[in-house]
Each structure stands twice: as C-alpha cells, then as structure tokens.
C-alpha cells in the first residue's frame, strides 16, 4: 500500500481537529487529545522493548547466556509495588537506589559542569592584546557587574540592615533590574519559539496537504 495520501489527510484532519479548541472546548478536540495520549503510550511501550530491553537485556540473557540479567526484571518490577499499601516499601527500596544514583551523578558532574563557568567569569578588566577600552567596558565590566548584582539578589539569608546589609540591598535591587532584562530576552525568544510552532503547522497544511493537489500552494508556501 502507499500510505502517502492517507498520511497527509490524517495529519490535516488531526491538526484541524485540535485547532477546533480555539473556538471553544468541544468533543472533537477532546477525542483527538485522547487518541494522542493513547498513541503516545503505545509508542513508548514498543520503543522501550525494541530499542532498549530487546538489545540490552533479552539478547544478552537469551542468546549470549548472560544469565545474571534474569535479576533485572525482578528489581525493575519492584517499582510496581507502589500500588500496594503493604509492600510499598519495596518500591521505595528501588526508588531509593535511583535517587542515590542521581545524587552520585550530580556529584560527578558538578565540577566538570560548573568550574569552567566560574573560571570564565573572571574576565579581563583592563585592555590587553586584541581588546580595546570600548570592548572591555561594554562587555566585561557590564558582565561582572551584572553577575555580581544578580548573585547578590539571591542572598536571602543576609538581612538588608546595617551598612553592609544596605549595600547588599542596593546591589540586590540593581540585580533585579538586570534580571528583568534577562527575562525580557527570554520572553522575546519564547514568542519566537511559539510562533514558529504554529508557522510549521500552517506550512504543513498549505504546502504538504493542499499543495499536494494545488501546486500553487506548494510553490508559495516553500520550504
């Protein structure tokens, strides 16, 4: 069979069905939401088997005779005792293991992840080879001031009283202003991201779906 046309129509109907929610909550969009969740669950199930368990557990255990893998499902299935009130501690046992592993992984990756960040925060504050005063002031001085003031904003355990505290308070206020700039930049990028998602869908409807029948749309919608 050639599923190409069926894929286009299914995609278009699904997209338009979801968009009906923009008018108001309705049975069509609710049906498509449930179908989406069902497809997602089914996909996760079979990819977990075919991409993970089959090659890394079943294959070694059955075909390479690594019999110790027989214990893996026993430990893995302990998670399901979370549904039993009497035996829930068994689920907590294996969850505790994974929490511990996550903590150990955090310890491992802390220095490789953050020490270059600390090191590179010490920017040159005076002109040197390849750096003029304009570069240094516009970039490095501003960088250091923003970094320190924003960090000071997060020092919640020191009261803004006394000489040091009042200074910290002023620094923290300046930090809040710089945070607003950062949040504004994040908002700008968020708008860009969200709009892109919609443009992508309209591109599909015009170029791929309608464009399949009317080539004018395919040419104009481009891509």
């Amino acid at each position, binding site marked *: 069979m050639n599923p190409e046309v069926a894929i286009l129509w299914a995609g278009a109907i699904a997209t338009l069905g979801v968009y009906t929610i923009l008018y108001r909550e309705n049975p069509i969009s609710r049906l498509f939401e449930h179908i989406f969740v069902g497809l997602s669950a089914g996909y996760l199930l079979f990819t977990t088997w075919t*991409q993970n368990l089959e090659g890394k557990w079943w294959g070694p255990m059955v075909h390479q005779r690594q019999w110790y893998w027989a214990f893996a499902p026993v430990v893995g299935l302990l998670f399901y005792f979370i549904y039993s009130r009497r035996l829930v501690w068994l689920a907590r046992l294996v969850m505790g293991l994974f929490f511990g592993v996550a903590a150990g992984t955090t310890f491992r990756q802390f220095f490789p992840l953050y020490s270059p960040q600390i090191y590179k925060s010490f920017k040159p504050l005076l002109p040197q080879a390849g750096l003029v005063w304009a570069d240094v002031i516009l970039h490095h001085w501003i960088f250091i001031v923003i970094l320190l003031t924003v960090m000071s904003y997060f020092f919640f355990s020191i009261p803004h009283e006394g000489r040091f505290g009042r200074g910290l308070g002023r620094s923290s206020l300046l930090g809040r202003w710089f945070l607003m700039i950062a949040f504004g930049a994040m908002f700008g990028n*968020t*708008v*860009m991201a969200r709009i*892109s*998602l919609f*443009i992508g869908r309209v591109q599909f409807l015009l170029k791929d779906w309608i464009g399949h029948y009317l080539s004018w749309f395919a040419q104009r919608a*481009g891509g």
Partner: protein
Amino acid sequence: MQQIPRHYIYLLLAGVVVWQLLAPMPLPISPSTATRGLYEAIRAVPEGKLIIISTDWDASTQAETWPQTEAVIHACFQARKRFVIMNMQPPMGVKLANDIALEVGKQYRARYGVDWANWGYKYGYGNVLMAMAKDIAKTIGDDFYGRPVTRLPLMQGVRSIRDIGLVVEVTGLAGVTEYWIGLIQGPYQVPFAAAYTAVMAPGYYPYLDSGQMKGMLVGAKGAAEMEALVRSPGKATTIMNVQSWAHLLIIALIVVGNLGYLLARGRREERRQ
C-alpha cells in the same frame, strides 16, 4: 482597546501567517557567531572520528528542531563526516531524525551503516552516557533497526567516547545538556555543540561563553542561518520570513494593549478628580 475578543487576535495571527506564507517578502539572513561555531566544529572533526547527533526532541518542537537536525545532517554530509543519530528522551525523535537522514542522504548517495547510522532510543540519561564513555557497543546494543551495532561498518574501530569527534545535541528538553557536558564534554574533553529551541536557548548562553559549547543554533533562526551556510534553504528560511511579521503583530498587540491601559487609567484619574 483593552477588550479585543481573543478570537479576533487568533484570526489576526492566523491571517498574518497565511498571508506571509502565500505572499512572502524574503529578507536576507546572515549567520551569527554561535551558528558559525557549530558549522566550523563539524568541519573540524578529525578524520576517523564519529559525530554523535543526539536528537532529544519530538513533534512538539519539530518546527524548530526538524530544520535544525536537517541542516546539521547536511553539514555532516557536505563535510564528509560520518555521524550517528541517537536519542535519550523522548523516543519519538529518533524516528523523525531517521526519516530526515534518509531523505537528506538521498542527495549525497549516503549509505546506512557506512556513512551514517542510527543507534536508536536509549533510555537512561546519565547511566547511558557513563556506560557509553567506556564501551559504546555494549551500551548501545542494537541499532534503530534491531541489528547489533557491532555489525555496522562505520562502527569498526569505534570503542569508547575517545573515538567520538563531536557531540551535537538537538533538543527542546532542558536538563539533558548538563548530562552531556558534565559526563562527556568535561571529563573527556569531547567537543560539544547544540541546537536548542528558542525558549531554552537564553539559559545556555553561559556554556557558549565558557567555551564548553563550540556553537549553538537558536530556534528556527539558527536553523535558517545553518541552512544559509550549507546553501540549502529549507523550512526554517521560510519560517523566518513569516516570523518577522508575526513578531511585528505581537509588538503591535502589546503596544495597543498598553495604550488602552494608559487611556483607561487617565480616564479613571479624571473621574476621581
């Protein structure tokens, strides 16, 4: 001015997007430093080493991450660098990326297993990376098609992370980069670059500044810039042309809303007086 019904705003947005898609006004796109960094990092991968493209995205971000992945794959093929696709979460990304690689590969007559491969969806985040650093074949097991990766010709001589020349992470998920940098880039000094959705990109500029990241694509804009560098304009270039007008609309809406607010506030103060 503050009471425009929301359906009119939706129609306005849809109208602007459809109008610009059907009657585009293309404007030039010039690649940024961050995008060039990623492009150069791909070209600088030493002979004999693999590139890992970790496609940790799904259809929810595909308008940005699909063209990003496509442009990165174009760059790999053009530079004749062998690469592998893999995915740690969500599992959908690995099939979408596979479809992209198959489609793009036709242009370069690329062969699966020789010029590129797909390691598939490997659940486990940090555990997968820690294990992969020591032994890739045992960690990956089977590829996307269910065949042992050891049987792929491009895996000859690839044992551990030291045989990897670059990791490019394409994702819409926050948190995965920290695993790659903390467990692979930092300890083993494997070059790392990334392509993010525009929402999460501002949070990762510090890694670009510190040199932990060689380059970065930011949303559809980064993808369009990469398409310009690989001379293959695609979806992202079209999206950016439309994006301009959509942004102008959003700015206009904010300005109109605030004008309405100021006028209403002025009237309220007049009434009080």
